Structures are given as C-alpha cells and as structure tokens.
C-alpha cells in the first residue's frame, strides 16, 4: 500500500516538475481568436478582458473600421472592427462575437472578433518570423506560430493600438 502511495507521490512530483519546466521562459502564452477564416493570437498578458458585445456609440469623421466608443465601467474606450480593418466585409454580431479589450501602457482599445478559440501555450522555438513580404515595422504581424496542424498569426499589440489615420 505504502509503495503505491509512494509511486503516486513520485508521479505527482514528476508532473509538477515538468509543469514548472513548461512555465519557463521558453513558453509563450497566447489567446487565439478567429477573424474571417484565419486564426490569430495575442499575448495573454496584453488582454485586459474579453467581454460579450455591448452597445456602442458611433464617432463621426473616423475610418470605417472604427465602430465608435463604448463604456467599460466608466471608461470611454474606442471600438475597432478587426474584420473591416483586415479588409473583410463587416458582419452582424452573433452569439460568438466578442470584444477583446487590449491594453499596453496607457493605450486601451476594444477589438471586435468573430469567435474565441482558446488559450494557447506555445514554445518559442515553434514561432517563426513573419513572412519576409509582411515583416518590417509597418507590419501588424509579430510572428507565425505552428502548433500541431494549425498555424497562428501572432499580432503586434502595439501596432493594433496605434492610431493610423
């Protein structure tokens, strides 16, 4: 009996150890979401919160991808439709639509996405650079992550939050 217990404890220890290994610097934690047909991801720490769609107010004299502003517990935050920003047609919000509130420094903005996928842990070595044609300072793409059979486009949060009009 005590042998069995020992085994279990040993096993648990092993697992914990491997987990702590996973949490080392080689792992990047991302949150994935779908826009149109593609899966994108942003670092989990840049996400302030993810909320269900709420009403917003249109702001005049802005590009089409800026839907307007909304009230997040007393703060007025801009709302950006990533579908339109990525050149897709806008789509009515449905059950799966979410507002992604991203934050970096003092910059905060909400982004409309079609659907959430999941929180992703990915090894750094599995993240490749953006294709040459898309790389550079102007690009919104930080890198391309490969996991199992899927490909994730990792977005630059700073670029998303930068005003470009």
């Amino acid at each position, binding site marked *: 009996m005590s042998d069995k217990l020992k085994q279990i404890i040993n096993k648990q220890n092993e697992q914990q150890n491997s987990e702590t290994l996973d949490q080392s610097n080689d792992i990047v934690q991302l949150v994935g979401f779908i826009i149109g047909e593609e899966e994108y991801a942003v670092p989990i720490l840049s996400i302030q919160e993810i909320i269900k769609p709420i009403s917003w*107010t249109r702001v*005049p*004299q*802005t590009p089409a991808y800026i839907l307007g*502003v909304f009230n997040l517990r007393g703060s*007025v935050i*801009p709302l950006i439709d990533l579908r339109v920003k990525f050149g897709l047609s806008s789509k009515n919000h449905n059950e799966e639509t979410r507002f992604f509130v991203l934050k970096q420094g003092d910059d905060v*903005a909400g982004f409309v996405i079609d659907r959430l996928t999941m929180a992703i842990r990915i090894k750094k070595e599995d993240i490749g650079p953006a294709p040459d044609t898309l790389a550079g300072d102007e690009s919104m793409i930080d890198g391309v992550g490969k996991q199992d059979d899927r490909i994730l486009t990792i977005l630059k949060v700073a670029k998303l939050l930068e005003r470009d009009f």
Partner: protein
Amino acid sequence: MDEFQEILQDFLIESFELVEKLDEDLVELENTPEDLELLNGIFRVAHTVKGASSFLNFDVLTHLTHHMEDVLNKARHGDLLITPNIMDVILESIDLMKALLNVIRDTSADAGIDVAACVVKLDKISGGDGEVDTPVATPEVVEEESVAEAEELDYDNMSPDDLEAEIERLLNERQEEDKAKRQAKVEAGEDVLAAPEIEEEVTAEPSTEPVSTPVPVTPTPPPVAPKVEPQKADAQAAAPAKRAPATVEQTIRVDVKRLDHLMNLIGELVLAKNRLIKINDDVEERYEGEEFLEELNQVVSIVSLVTTDLQIAVMKTRMLPIGKVFNKFPRMIRDLTRELNKKIELEISGEDTELDKSIVEEIGDPLVHIIRNSCDHGIETPDIRLAAGKSETGTIALKAYNEGNQIVIQIDDDGKGLDTEMLKNKALEKGLISEKEADSMSEKEAFGLIMRPGFSTAAAVTNVSGRGVGMDVVKTNIEKVNGIIDIESEVGVGSSMKLKIPLTLAIIQALLVGVQEEHYAIPLASVLETVRISKDEIYTVEGRSVMRLRDEVLSLVHIGDIFEVERILDVSEHAYVVVLGLGTSKLGLIVDNLVGQEEIVIKSLGDYLKGIEGIAGATIRGDGGVTLICDVVALMDMAKGVKATAMVESSSAAEITHEKSKPSDYTVMIVDDSKTDRTIMRKALEPMGITLVEASDGQEALNILKAGDYNFDAMLVDIEMPRMDGYSLATEIKKYNRYKNLPLIAVTSRTGKSDRMRGVESGMVEYITKPYSADYLASVVQRNVNFKAEFL
C-alpha cells in the same frame, strides 16, 4: 541626494510663493516709499531666499540676493529713499531672481544667468549716498522685528570692517532687548500680583512691543520727514489687521494630482447618481403606488443631494483666487507706463473671486495680452487725453465677479475706444474680409475682427503689442477653457472686454439633442436659445440654409450633415434649431429633437481617437451609454464647409425590390409573445413555402428590422406583448423610411372598435381577430405580399 531634492523642492515652492507677492508690494512701495511694513516684507523675501540659497550652494543667487538685501536694508533703515530709478534697479534684480529660480527649478543649478551688471547697479545705490555700507549708522533705531533677520546675516560675505560693525550693532541690539525685557518684567511683575504665574510670559510679550517700536528715523531726508510720521502710524496700525486673518487660516499643502484624482472619482459618482435617478424613474413607473417607492425616493434624493454638495466641495478645494493672476499686473502697468510715456492707473477689484486651478493657469497669458493692448492701443498719450478733455491719467479697471455658473473677468479702459470703420478698413486692407461682408457687418462683428489672426491695428509695430498675434491667441486660449469673449466699445469713451469663463472644466451643464437615433451633448454655455420651426421657414441663400430669427438672419446647418449621420428615420415636419453663440458669431444647428438638460462629466476619448474635428469629448449617460460632446468652436468652423442639405428630403434609402423567383423569396415576420400562437401561424403559412422569421416581442422585432438581414414583405403583429406592444412597434417601424410601406397585419384577440381604430392609427393595414382559420390567414398574407399566382 533625495534629501537634498526634498529640501530643494520646499525651497522652490516657498520662494515662488514669496516672489509672487513681491511684485505687487514693490509697486505699492513706490507710491508709499516710507511704508516700513512693506519694506520689511520685501526685505524678508530677499533675506529668506538668500539664506536658503547659500545653504543650498546656489552662489549666483546668493550673490544677487545679498546685494539686493543691502539696498533694501538701507531703505528699511531710512538711509535711502526709494526713487523710481532705484525701483527700476530693484525690479530688475527681482526679475533676475525669478529667472534664477526658474533655472534652478529646471536644472537644479543656478548657472547661466549673468547678474554682474545688476549687482554693480545695486552696489552703486547702496554705496551711492556716501555712507558706510552698514546698518550700524543708526543703532538706536534698531527694531525688534529686524533682530531675527539681522542675526542670520551672512557673515562670510562681510568685510572685516563690516563684521566689526555688525558685532557692535548686535551688541547694541542685545542691550536694547535686555533693557526692554527688564522693563517688561517690571511691568509684568506688577501684573503677577493679580494674574496667575503662567500668564507672565503672555502678558510680557505684547508689552515688549511698544518699547521696541521703531522711533522715526533721524537720517531720513528732511523734505519727506513731515510726511513720514502719519504714514508710519498708518502702516503700523494696518499691519496687525493685515496679519490677523493670515494666522487664523489653517492650510495644508496637497499634491494637485491627488485633487485631480479626487475630482475624477467625483465624476464617476456624478455619473452613478445620474444613473440612479434614471433607474428610480423607471422603477417608479413600473411599480406605481407601491410603498417601498417612497423610501427609495428618499434615498435617491439624499444621494443626489450629497453628491452635488460633495462635487461643489471638491471643486472648491481646487479653486484659487484670481488674485494670483492679477498680482503681476500692477508691475506690468508700471513698466508699460514708463516705456510708453503714458499715465495709466490700474484698478483691481474682485481679486478674491475663485476659479478652478487649471483655468487660472490658462487665463494668465490672455489677460496679459488684453491689458497690454489696452495700454498700447486703448489709452491715449497724456497730451491727447488732455486735448480730448479727459484727465491726464488713463484708467484700466480689472475686475472679476461671479455671474451664475460663470466667472466674468472684465477689463475696462477709458481710452479712445474701437472705431468700427477703421477696423473694417483695416480688415479689408489685409484681405481678412470681403467688401460685402464689411457692409453687412454689425458693430459687434466688427469688434470681433480684432480677434482674427493676422489683424493688428497699431500703425507701427511696437515692443508692447501690434505684432498681430496677440488677440487671436487670446481668443484660442479663452475658447480652450470653454470661455467666450464679449467686446463693447464707444469711440472716444473707452472699451470694455468681458471674458466669461465656466467655473470648472470637468463637469458642465449640457443640452442633449437627438438626431436620428444618435444623441449629442452641447455645452449649455454656448447655447443662446432653442426654437421650433417648420420646414418652410428655412430659406436657401447662396447655397446655404438660413432662417429669420426675429430681426436677424441666422445661418443654419443640420447636425446630421456635420456628423455624417445616416438618415434612416423619417424627419417630421418640424425640427428644432439650437442657436449657438460664441462671442460675436452665431449659428443655428438643426436637430431632430431636444432631449433635455443634464449635468455631464467630460471624459476624453483617449489617445486613439483624440483630435476628431467637432468632438470635444464624451460622457457617460444615466443608461450607461456613451454620448459625444460637441466642440462648438470647431462646429462653427465646420459649418462653413457644409452645403445646404439641411432638412432636404432624407436620402431616400431606395428600396431595391428584389424580383421574386421562388416562394421562399418572400419573407414574413411573426411577432407574438406566445410560442403556441407563433406555431399556429407558422403552421398556417408554411404550406406556401415562404420564409418565416419569429420574434417574441416588439423590441426583438425592431432589432431584427434594424439589423437588416432580411427584406421583409409583411409582418404579423400581436398587440398584447411585454416590453413593447404591437401599437408602439407599429409606430416605431413607421418612423423608418425603409419600412414605410411594409404591410403590418395585426393578429389579436382584442376586438373592440377602439382597438381597431388604434391599430389603424399606428399604421396597421389589416386586422385579424383570433381565432382565425389557417386559410384565412394565408390569404390575407398572400394579398398583402402580392404573392405571385404561379407559386400557388
């Protein structure tokens, strides 16, 4: 190092505070050169700054203040009479001192400013009257008050002679003091018999004063001597009165950031309060007559009352007396009069009027410009004034007072006034206005010309003003704090300029207006009035919409044209015009409806959206939604570029009638709160093969319509439904151009005649009473959607 920084901060705060008061005192001193109280005050400033700066190793500043101190000390002891020329040097040295303090604040060192020239001048003054450069000359008049300072004199900087003299002086002083104390003791001793012992000290102190009161000084230049006596007595009498309130007032220094934070929190509270009031109204409506309402009402009103009080209280903590800004003007006027060879007197009143700190900081520069302008362009030279039968000395009156929710700062001068013809000609010359504009210009508008960029009326550009940049800067700065400028003037009599500024920037009263489904907030300060008009009151002149408002012609612009609002809803026959006024210009803003007046908290749109033309910020409303705040200044600018489309028949959302090629191209919405009823209708209509969409109440139906995913050919509407009933739904639907001709079929168990009437009024085309046969329902629907026979 941190400790040093801390001391440095304290030093800077203290010094700036002292220096601020200094200018005013100095100018006053020039008028009453023998006012000892004033002199002492000024001397103390120089001395304090010197002491602290030598401690902090600011050698340049110490050097300068030391020499200033010498001069002031002489004047204080009556060895020196302050003449305007001496005053010029003292003022110059104080300017240098300010400059040095600024340098220290920015760089923590006092290098980079040359004080040598000024020090030489100061030396000349202090040594100029041939006497030894020490206060010892009149040891017997040394007064108690100076003892404290004198003891702290910087001995390092003294020559051996000076030092000796100083020691002698101190000795004398001590003897005096002892003598006084002894005398006081004697006096007090007599008192001791009557009073308890503890009071000895207390009684002793005041009794010292008369003994050590400075005796009129012998070396005072003879011509002035007779005058000295009464003035001194005056000063002495005034001094205690002046000081008394200062000691009673208890203050603590608070970081402005903390106050800002507090203000933000209050802002949140005000929003929550607005929301609570709205919810209270809703609850009241729904549970009319319930007992708990009374209690809820009370709580809500207490909360709203306290919130308002709290808001006012916090606003007050941020208030500063406007005197802080006014302080620098006496000095400025003095300099200007000497420079321009004019005689000008400045009268200041209402300097206790309080304004929000952020506003006080903003209005300093505009006021400087305005007063400089009044001195330069307004007030005439003495000979011209005499020729015009006015007194030789011109007067500029600067006053501040409260008027409702605003502060008014008024600057009056009795100069030559503004000549409208001259202004117009000048503006024409510079190409700022066209001839036509000049002819149609009212007097007020002509005055407004001086605020235009690139306008300058001075024939020659002087050092003081006339570079043509001043007044338009004034305008921008004042508008930045939501203020307005009002000019009045009469040729030969003078002009008056009123700056009207809101008390605070963070929370304002606003008029909420609606256009289509959007709401906007307009700062109430810029709203002159609102009028209701019908479409045929709008005329088009040169491609712009205008209307007649009493005896004026008001140009109009539709808010929807400025903010690119899509015209989905039908515009009714009537509209509202919000008359916006900004200084001298007016504009009529057409809106669909007026929502009401509300207290709103201004929030910024953040970095991402800042600087959008026409939008000053946003606010959060009682229902939690965001409403944008109009920037009235920008709005007026934008209106110029908008063509007359106002009130024109709304952009007909041309309904594309799709060719129906199969039965499922027909779409019908079923609105009923009962699932069973919806199923019955569905069963009846399904055989036709048409597309059916269901909604469980009016609100949901409206949302489906708004989403625009389907092109409906008809709607079956139940009357009794929660949230929004059938009548209201019909009324709402008919507001949309797009659905104007959508057949609405009422399906209800209400059979009364009045029900039918209401149905017709709200726009229903058919009225089917439950129960009905499936065939009947199908035939009614077919008739209304023009169902093609071939699909049957």
